[in-house]
């Protein structure tokens, strides 16, 4: 299958290893991955901060960029949620019904990684090897906007060597919320503190999720507290094999200040 990678601006800029892992994983499963160069950002930050007019050209760009492809995959529940649930709304608000229809069509062909693997490719065992104790944080948008349910867990359970431990109160938001983390930094930090407490209570070495944004938030907290617990994108775990070595985690811990 020919798959267009929707890398997301955050993974592109700050977490390329999650995107690289997505490419390697899909190629390992025998598919062709292409990277449409015209893509930049889906505009979610603009929409969610109250700038739909500014988001309009980004929506138009996204639709134009991905329209030629039958299947679009992104390593992010949040960005896929925006494409599927917000792009048409932004277009309609601007009075562009035609763009809205095109955006809906692109949205129908756009998948979050775990959805794509389980629902479209029909695999849960992707041949991964990851000998670590891991806990999974279901990000809000993958959980409640996309309803990915237990798909990521089904994938993780098939990873050889992986010791999966349940995250208490996992379904509570980590407190990121895009610009919420800046506009309401204190409340966001309070939510993060509880998330960190639960992550640490599992004794896991690694906290994983399907969104680089939430992982950046949780990882930033884990790093600040010098917990030693790392955050690793789901794609990186699924891409890891016995021959690839412990790629990823070490090179992406947060900075020490």
């Amino acid at each position, binding site marked *: 299958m020919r798959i267009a990678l929707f*890398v997301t601006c955050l*993974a*592109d*800029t700050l*977490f*390329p290893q999650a*995107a690289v892992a997505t490419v390697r994983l899909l190629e390992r499963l025998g598919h062709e991955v292409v*990277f449409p*160069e015209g893509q*930049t*950002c889906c*505009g979610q*930050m*603009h*929409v*969610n*901060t*109250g*700038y*739909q007019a500014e*988001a309009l*050209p*980004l929506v138009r*760009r996204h639709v134009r960029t991905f329209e030629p492809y039958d299947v679009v995959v992104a390593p992010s529940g949040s960005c896929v949620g925006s494409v599927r649930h917000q792009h048409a*709304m932004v277009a309609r608000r601007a009075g562009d019904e035609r763009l809205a229809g095109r955006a809906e069509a692109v949205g129908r062909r756009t998948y979050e990684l775990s959805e794509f693997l389980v629902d479209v490719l029909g695999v849960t065992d992707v041949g991964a090897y990851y000998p670590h104790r891991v806990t999974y944080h279901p990000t*809000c*948008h993958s*959980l*409640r906007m996309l309803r990915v349910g237990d798909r990521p867990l089904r994938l993780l359970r098939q990873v050889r060597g992986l010791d999966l431990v349940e995250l208490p109160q996992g*379904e*509570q*938001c980590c*407190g990121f*919320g*895009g*610009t919420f983390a*800046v*506009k*309401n*930094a*204190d*409340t*966001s*930090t*309070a*939510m*993060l503190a509880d998330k960190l407490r639960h992550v640490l209570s599992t004794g896991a070495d690694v906290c994983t999720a399907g969104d680089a944004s939430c992982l*950046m*938030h949780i*990882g*930033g*907290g884990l*790093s*600040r507290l010098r917990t030693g617990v790392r955050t690793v994108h789901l794609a990186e775990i699924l891409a890891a094999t016995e021959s690839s070595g412990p790629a990823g985690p070490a*090179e*992406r811990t*947060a*900075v*020490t*200040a």
Partner: protein
Amino acid sequence: MSRTFLGMPATAPRGVGHLRGDEPFPAAARRGLADPQLRRNLGHATTTIRAKSGAVIRELPDWEQLRAAGSAIKADVLARLPELLEQLEAAVTAAGGTVHWAADAVAANRIVTDLVAATGSDRVIKVKSMATQEIGLNEALEAAGITAVETDLAELIVQLGEDRPSHILVPAIHRNRAEIREIFLRAMPGVDPGLTDDPAALAAAARRYLRQTFLTTPVAVSGANFAVAETGTLAVVESEGNGRMCVTLPETLITVMGVEKVVPTWRDLEVFLQLLPRASTGERMNPYTSMWTGVTPGDGPQAFHLVLLDNGRSAVLADEVGRQALHCIRCSACLNVCPVYERAGGHAYGSVYPGPIGAVLSPQLTGVADNASLPYASTLCGACYDACPVKINIPELLVHLRDRAPHPRAEAAAMAAAAYVMDRPALYAAAQRGARLSRLAGRRGRGLPPPLSGWTIGRDLPQPPPRTFREWWARR
């Protein structure tokens, strides 16, 4: 008297009622966050209610179908609101009641004050009502020399503690049993000095304290959970029996009701009486629901007044996206699942409507400029939408209102610049490289300038990668 255009949708007036806070949400939230007792109380209470509500909702095989019906009924109500209100008025009048129309809080307070004054009573008993809190009725009555006695236990705790409500269903949720005992010992006349903090003992103290007041006060003020247009039937859903006292014992009953509370048919109650208790208190059915139609000769109040309140609702209705906030049946399920509410507490929202529903309702009732921080008081995690028994898409409304909110100038400039760059891939790639270089040059870790410094109060920044993805892709 300054007037807006007559007959045009209008927001709730300033200077009256409790829809506007004194400070923006982030500042007000800081106080709640810094109060460990409050956070323990809220954490305990919301965890308890989430478990109870979840259990009784799971008992119903048709919860989703009930939600769909409830949502559809409310949408139908909004599409036919003027006609349904006229029908309600006719039915109530035919059953011996009197209907009054209040365009805003000022008008409603005047109507109620005049009605109470006409009875000659200087005291009213009140059953918990969001509408009368919204309009500041107690203050208006007090200014006219009339004492309003709150009879709901939580409202009584708030009133005796000279406090503000912080939750729709349980206004004293921020207080635990020990604090409630202290308030009663300090402020409840005639209280037993040996009072313990056992909830049953606290409830019994309220029973003793209010019993004589119930028996001797000739006027009551209530809200309404539902009003049936077809029959003129009003419903008050409650637990303690104080509602029954208020709608049964006095000679005069005055009910203040937001116009959106009307439902078309008697049968519609079969939906809401299943949705509300399970979503609200987590009970299969609340202990008491009273329903009355006008006046029943020989039974209950012989004078009944219904005050229909706009106070900004017409402005909400005028927004085709925003109007779904008027579906709200005040169950407070969204508060109980909200991670922001749980930590910041209800006072942070400024308005009598806290939590997620408050964040979308208050700014619409007042105009978004008067509550501009509230639409941002959410991570858009979506837990509220899942919990809402009438399927109000609160995250969608928050995003909608953020678009209409006034934006800080610096932020607007930055957003416009970001959009400009992101619409130009070459510029975008250059900006990615530039960001990395500036970070490598020293602005790492904690040292972001305001407003981005909020990020680094509790989190480190990620290490910039050696290459962006598109650089990696170009070289492979």
